[in-house]
Structures are given as C-alpha cells and as structure tokens.
C-alpha cells in the first residue's frame, strides 16, 4: 500500500502564509493608486518555492505560532 505523501510542515506553512498575505500590492504615489500585478500563485508551483526555501539563511526563519491539532 502506498504511503500518503504528506507535505512537510514548512511547505504547508509557507503555502498557507502566501495564500493569505499575497494580493495586489498597492503603491500610492500622490493621489494615484497603482496596482502591482498579481502574483500568480499556483498550488503546483510549490516545487519552485521549495527550492528557494531550502537555500534560505536559517536566520531569516521566523518562528510561527502555528499549532497543528493533529
């Protein structure tokens, strides 16, 4: 029987964060509101994200107060 291939906790965390904080960034210069293009975050694009996460300096890792119920 195949094992269910669960995402690593960091991967889950990162996707959850990106899902919440990303949207159009808004730059307001003077009275004009300009929109930055959406980041097209595709769930399948996680592999690209992961390779970047692995190269991160550990000092940049922020403790997340996330609790898993299971």
């Amino acid at each position, binding site marked *: 029987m*195949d094992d*269910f*291939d*669960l*995402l690593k906790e960091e991967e*889950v*965390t*990162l996707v*959850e*964060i*990106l899902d*919440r*904080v*990303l*949207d*159009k*960034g*808004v*730059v*307001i*210069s*003077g009275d004009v509101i*300009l929109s*930055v*293009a959406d*980041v097209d975050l595709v*769930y*399948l694009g*996680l592999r*690209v*994200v992961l*390779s*970047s*996460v692995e*190269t*991160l*300096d550990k000092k*940049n*890792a*922020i*403790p*997340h*107060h*996330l*609790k*898993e*119920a*299971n």
Partner: protein
Amino acid sequence: MEQDNFLIYLYCLCEEQPKLPNISFNQNIEILPFNDFFAIIELVPTKDFGEQPLQNNISDMEWLIPKVNIHEGVIQQLMEETTVLPVKFATIFSQKNSLFTLLKANTEKYQTNFEKLRDKEEWGIKIFNISDDVWLLQNTDDQEILAMQDAINIASPGKAFLMKKKLTSLVNSKKSLLYKKVASELYENLKIYTQESIQKSILPAQRSKEKMMLNAVFLLEKKAVPTWVKQIENIEAAMSKKTLDINVTGPWPPYHFMN
C-alpha cells in the same frame, strides 16, 4: 533628499499601542498613532519596493519568501498583544500623507473591524481524502452499480469492454457526489462553535494520491478554540478507518474576516 529613497511599508493596524522592541527580528518597525489606533510601518528602500522593482522582486521567490515571512512574523507577534487588522503584503505609500489620507477615510471601518475581531482568531482547515475507503465503506450495495456489473458478466467481450467504461464513469460520478456530500457535512459540523466561516476553492492535487475535499477558514473566539479543536479530534476518532486527513492550521491573523 533621503526621503526620496524610501517608501512606507504598512504591516497592519493595531487597536492598542504595542510594546516595542517586541519584534526581535526587525528593529526598524515604527508605530504611527492615528486617531484611536496605530499603524505599524517600516521605511523600505525604493530600489526594492518601488513599483518597477517590486514587480520584478515579487516573482523572485528568493526575494519574496523571506520578506513574506517577516511580514507574517511581525503581525503574528503583535497579535499576541492586541487586536490586529492585517494588511496584505507589499502595501506601500510614497509618503505619510498618503497613508494618513487612507486611514482617515476608513477610520470608521477600522473601528468596526477592531470591535468585530477583538479576542478572535482565524483558523484554517483543509481536508484530504486519502483513500478510496470513503467510497468503499459506503457503497458496497449500490443497486445501479451491481446491476451493471451483473450485465457485464454475461455480455460479449466487445459489449463488456464498452460497458466497463460506462461503469467506471458512473462510479466516478457517484464518488464525486459522495465526497461532496461528506465534505458538506464536515463543513456544517466544523461551523459549530465558530463565529463565521468561509469555504474556499479546492486546490488541485499536489501529489497524485491527494484529493482535497474541503478548504475552509473559520473565525473563532479565542476561548472557543479548545472546544472546536476537541470536536475535530472527535471527528477523526470516529473514523473507523483513516480515510480523511484533516489539516488544521492557526491561529492566523483574520485576513479573511475583515469587512
């Protein structure tokens, strides 16, 4: 002028003045009082956060990920002290006046949100179907399927081949309906003890074995969280076989529940 080299990055709004430096990993955070609340900002270089460079940087994961982690980290730390209205990543102002104009225009809305969100948290749930057992446990005697199987057994090879294809199609659509029903029931159960809930779209499979059935976020009073979590544990315990994977994350800043 030095000001030309910097823009104002807005992290969030706080109901009460947070104690700083509380944010151990970012010493450049500033608190801007405005009316009865506080804007949490940082001066960021135009060369990184100006419109053009930002468009490029946002597509560069090595730039984006640490920045996003800082953004979320700041907000999470402030959440421990006071009610926070989180702002999306890369919300930027060219000068303080632009920021104040926005804050002034929306003061009433912010006050309403502080009231609504005080002592509350957002939690997320994703439920995955991890085996066909959900289907198998419930459908050993579906009459339509049994009838088709009987017909296949006595059909000629050619006919049987076509009928098997039809059967597969029928089984898949019934499975789909069942999973939707199960997901819907789960969602209704999960809503208990919560203030508000939002069902989000199902994301495509990350791994071949994975099938997401439910993707939802909930707003809960902090004091209701242990009861709600216990309820989820009960749902899991009630499964005779582990057919579902329930992935719970939280507490989150209330990104989904601001008006």
